[in-house]
């Protein structure tokens, strides 16, 4: 076992874990205050659900012995057959369990990425069901195609170093399909839907950026030159993408916005993800700049085409993922680039897009038919925080509350159970 590599991968796993709460804050700050907690929870619940699925059967489906290039076997259900001492990558490799944990974080993050497209309008239970199904029949197979030995895109030698295709294109397309099923927010294009807290957005972007070093460099699965290249390129591309986005915004809309800077950073991070290990620092600048410029334009498409991708999952993750996945075919400096590779990259990207779109659409329809995907109009208008979480994000007024057992009207617990102290002392008058 290689101790340095193992330590690096375990630390990287923890860094990637931080990306999901980071994403929750990034998205959470961007929605209106009435559904801010719901937005946070849509990401956070993915850590809960997918972590469990991953050890139950996800790892086995993604990285079990290949079956026809499409899916892994069921041999590692419940992680059976993977001992503490089992190594991956030979005698000088890392424990399989470290790899399991590292990949678990990717699986948990990917469904959460889609939540931004569905902001403010879906039932929380329906979302939980959707990502359970989506992880199972979309993410686990696609992760197998791209990263597992025997997976058909892996064998085709498509380059997806850290997940431009398996994570970002996959989630971006899945989000688009789900949006088309769920429909627009009430008031889309009519009412102002300002981000309620841009500082939260910047905090979220910062945590994502930080965690992304684990995501990208950690994908080298070793503390080596590839990891260093990837880490450096991650920083450089992200920086360039901020500049690209702000430049476009200043020319097109007249201001350097905070939201633009944060969005640019994420676009750059997405674009360098598949490519960073195969380009040099100048290539990373090019990828970042292109991602910043193109994604800042792409987020306006939803208004023209009329789909309500609320927080621009398509414009940032799908478009950014495609940019990085294709540009590696052009900018690779380690001899893997060229026209043939570009063709392979396109084949990989588009086959995942087709598969993910079709299956995600069917799943969203299924969820809608079985439990109803969309929140009621009343709940959507009043805010999902109250409807599904019985909470308020910020307490701006200290007056006006009382224990549910004494309150006259309202609270969920109103008629159910009174707290013991109030027993017998209460005279409740039902109107």
């Amino acid at each position, binding site marked *: 076992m290689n101790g340095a590599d193992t330590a690096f991968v375990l630390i990287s796993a923890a860094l990637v874990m931080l990306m999901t709460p980071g994403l929750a804050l990034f998205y959470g700050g961007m929605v209106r205050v009435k559904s801010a907690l719901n937005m946070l929870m849509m990401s956070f619940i993915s850590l809960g659900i997918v972590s469990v699925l991953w050890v139950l059967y996800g790892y086995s489906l993604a990285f079990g012995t290949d079956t026809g290039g499409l899916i892994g076997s069921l041999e590692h259900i419940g992680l059976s057959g993977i001992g503490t001492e089992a190594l991956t990558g030979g005698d000088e490799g890392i424990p399989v369990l470290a790899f399991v944990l590292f990949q678990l974080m990717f699986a948990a993050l990917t469904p959460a990425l889609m939540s931004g497209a569905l902001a403010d309008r879906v039932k929380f239970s329906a979302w939980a069901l959707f990502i359970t199904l989506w992880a199972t029949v979309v993410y686990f197979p696609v992760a197998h195609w791209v990263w597992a030995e025997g997976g058909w895109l892996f064998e085709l030698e498509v380059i997806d170093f850290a997940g431009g295709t398996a994570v970002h294109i996959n989630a971006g397309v899945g989000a688009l399909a789900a949006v088309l099923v769920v429909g627009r927010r009430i008031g889309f294009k009519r009412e102002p839907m*300002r*981000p309620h807290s841009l500082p939260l957005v910047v905090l979220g972007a910062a945590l994502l950026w930080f965690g992304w070093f684990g995501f990208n460099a950690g994908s080298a699965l070793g503390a080596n030159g590839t990891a260093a290249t990837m880490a450096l390129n991650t920083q450089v591309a992200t920086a360039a993408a901020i500049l690209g986005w702000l430049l476009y915004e200043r020319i097109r809309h007249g201001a350097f*916005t905070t*939201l*633009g800077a944060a*969005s640019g950073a994420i676009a750059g991070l997405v674009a360098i993800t598949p490519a960073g290990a195969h380009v040099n620092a100048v290539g990373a600048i090019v990828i970042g700049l292109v991602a910043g410029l193109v994604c*800042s334009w792409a*987020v306006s498409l939803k208004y023209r085409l009329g789909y309500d991708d609320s927080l621009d999952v398509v414009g940032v993750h799908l478009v950014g993922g495609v940019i990085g996945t294709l540009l590696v075919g052009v900018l690779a400096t380690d001899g893997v680039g060229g026209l043939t590779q570009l063709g392979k990259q396109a084949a990989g990207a588009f086959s995942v897009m087709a598969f993910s779109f079709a299956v995600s659409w069917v799943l969203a329809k299924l969820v809608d038919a079985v439990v109803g995907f969309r929140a009621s109009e009343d709940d959507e208008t009043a805010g999902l925080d109250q409807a599904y979480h019985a909470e308020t994000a910020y307490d701006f007024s200290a007056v006006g509350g009382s224990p549910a057992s004494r309150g006259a009207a309202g609270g969920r617990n109103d008629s159910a159970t009174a707290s013991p102290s109030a027993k017998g002392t209460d005279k409740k008058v039902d109107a």
Partner: protein
Amino acid sequence: MKLITAVIKPHRLDEVKDALQAFGVQGLTVTEASGYGRQRGHTEVYRGAEYTVDLVPKVRVEVLVEDEDAEQLLDVVVKAARTGKIGDGKVWSVPVETAVRVRTGERGPDAL
């Protein structure tokens, strides 16, 4: 008695407060408010989507004064709140029938 109400720019509140204090006003009430006058709102842009914000933040200051002080106090508030730019706000006064100090029960001008 008169109730003087001033709706002003939030960043002028300190000046108005100081001016009222210098004038000898004992107490006042401040509320965060929003609204617009001739200046209307402003435009914000989020990822290219432009929003017109009609209601801009203001501060409402309310002071109870004796009748003979009212005119002079209006001038004091106006002078302290003025920046000379559009959107400085408005000040007005209305007659008040009575006022009671809650702690002592004093009524009328004694309650001020």
